[in-house]
């Protein structure tokens, strides 16, 4: 780290991002524009989340980075190494030890605490983009709380397919006002956003937007009165490594045998569970 700026970004950049974070927290669900900086990583690879992490992180923080639930994926490992090389902070794969968790596509299984900050990388922050291509027009729609288009989109999906097919990035209504993209987390994770103890920060580097959900804020997944919101169903399935049930599972298909097996998507949770169970079994054997 010697000779480099702490946390890579210059202080002016951090200050602007910090100002945007304050506004984002004060106006839950509203996308605050910011001057997204160049990073030594391509846009679309988590630059929004990285800029948030670099702007909030301090020496006493403990950082966890996950990508699709995994602590060991190339993206997660490299982001973690990048931040560590400019801050010297401690890193971890244990959700409970972390003070800042940066993630793409998942919220950890372990419930987060009030002293933790969850940073989510967002490729497409605008929930109205599928309906309206113009940024100017979507700003007006948000200003007028004109969300008819998004409801119509869900309705058309329902009529065509018999159910709402969006597997992830399922829109939520924040505190009864803004409709917000929760980033490409699976629908399974949507309920973790509402009334959470922790602060959620969302960063879209390419789209230059920051938004937030303060703790205990409501984030209701959109649903019709007679068609309730449904998440992925893992009933009767469990992780082949740790045996966990009622968690988000990855489906793994063995082409050679044709077997299907399931594994925890949250690798840190799975690892800790195996270690804890292993230790308990060893104690019993002893």
């Amino acid at each position: 780290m010697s000779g480099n700026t702490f946390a890579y970004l210059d202080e002016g950049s951090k200050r602007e991002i910090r100002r945007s974070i304050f506004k984002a927290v004060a106006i839950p669900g509203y996308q605050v524009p910011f001057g997204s900086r160049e990073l030594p990583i391509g846009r679309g690879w988590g630059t929004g989340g990285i800029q948030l992490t670099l702007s909030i992180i301090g020496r006493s923080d403990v950082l966890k980075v996950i990508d699709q639930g995994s602590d060991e994926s190339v993206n997660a490992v490299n982001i973690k190494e990048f931040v560590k090389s400019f801050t010297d902070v401690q890193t971890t794969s244990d959700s409970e030890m972390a003070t800042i968790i940066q993630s793409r596509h998942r919220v950890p299984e372990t419930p987060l605490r009030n002293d933790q900050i969850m940073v989510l990388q967002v490729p497409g922050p605008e929930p109205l983009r599928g309906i309206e291509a113009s940024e100017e027009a979507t700003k007006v729609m948000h200003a007028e709380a004109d969300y008819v288009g998004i409801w119509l989109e869900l309705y058309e999906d329902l009529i065509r397919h018999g159910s709402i097919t969006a597997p992830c990035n399922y829109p939520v209504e924040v505190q009864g006002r803004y409709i917000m993209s929760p980033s490409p987390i699976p629908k399974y994770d949507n309920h973790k956003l509402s009334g959470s103890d922790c602060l959620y920060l969302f960063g879209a580097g390419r789209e230059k937007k920051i938004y937030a959900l303060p703790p205990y804020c409501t984030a209701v997944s959109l649903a019709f009165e007679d068609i309730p919101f449904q998440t992925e169903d893992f009933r009767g399935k469990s992780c082949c490594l740790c045996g966990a049930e009622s968690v988000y599972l990855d489906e793994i298909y063995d082409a050679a045998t044709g077997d299907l097996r399931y594994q925890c998507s949250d690798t840190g949770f799975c690892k800790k569970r195996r270690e804890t169970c292993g230790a308990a079994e060893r104690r019993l054997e002893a």
Partner: protein
Amino acid sequence: MKTFHDFDFVMDTQALFRAMLECIANPGRIVNIARLSSKLPVHSAHLTALGLVVLDNEVRFNTSGDGKLQESLSALTLAKPAEFQHANYIFCPLDRRASIPEAIVEAKAGTLQDPHESATFFIETDNLREGAFTELRGPGIKDAMRAPLSPAIQQALFYRDEKACRFPLGVDFFFIDSGGNLMSIPRMVRSYAA
């Protein structure tokens, strides 16, 4: 003798930012920043410390007529002073409390398309742990919390409500007392008689 070298403009500013973030994300919670702000050898050290987190040459501020505070904030941050109606950040020292009503009435509340273009207040107040108990409700608060609100805070909230801005428009507050206790009440949080 204290000098500006005692204050680490990178690490201490980061710690101040996190204290402010904890406050604004958890309205009504009190976080103490005296350890950091006491390093600054200036008049109104607490307000100056908060200013260092948000001010630079891209934003405008107003110090409610406090010339010394304006001078030190300008010198340290290169931010430009402005009238209440143009200021992004408005600082109200304790002895300028009389200007709070005018500042709130005139402050920017944002627009429906750009609600973030609104003012944030930093108001010096009496002891944050003393005052009439009031119930606070809103995002960042689990159900409701009872908090003692000093007369200056009650006055600020009264004029904010009088401003009659409908969310997402509004102004956000940080309150600080002489002991360095910091508390925030953002625009969506409302107070009710306990």
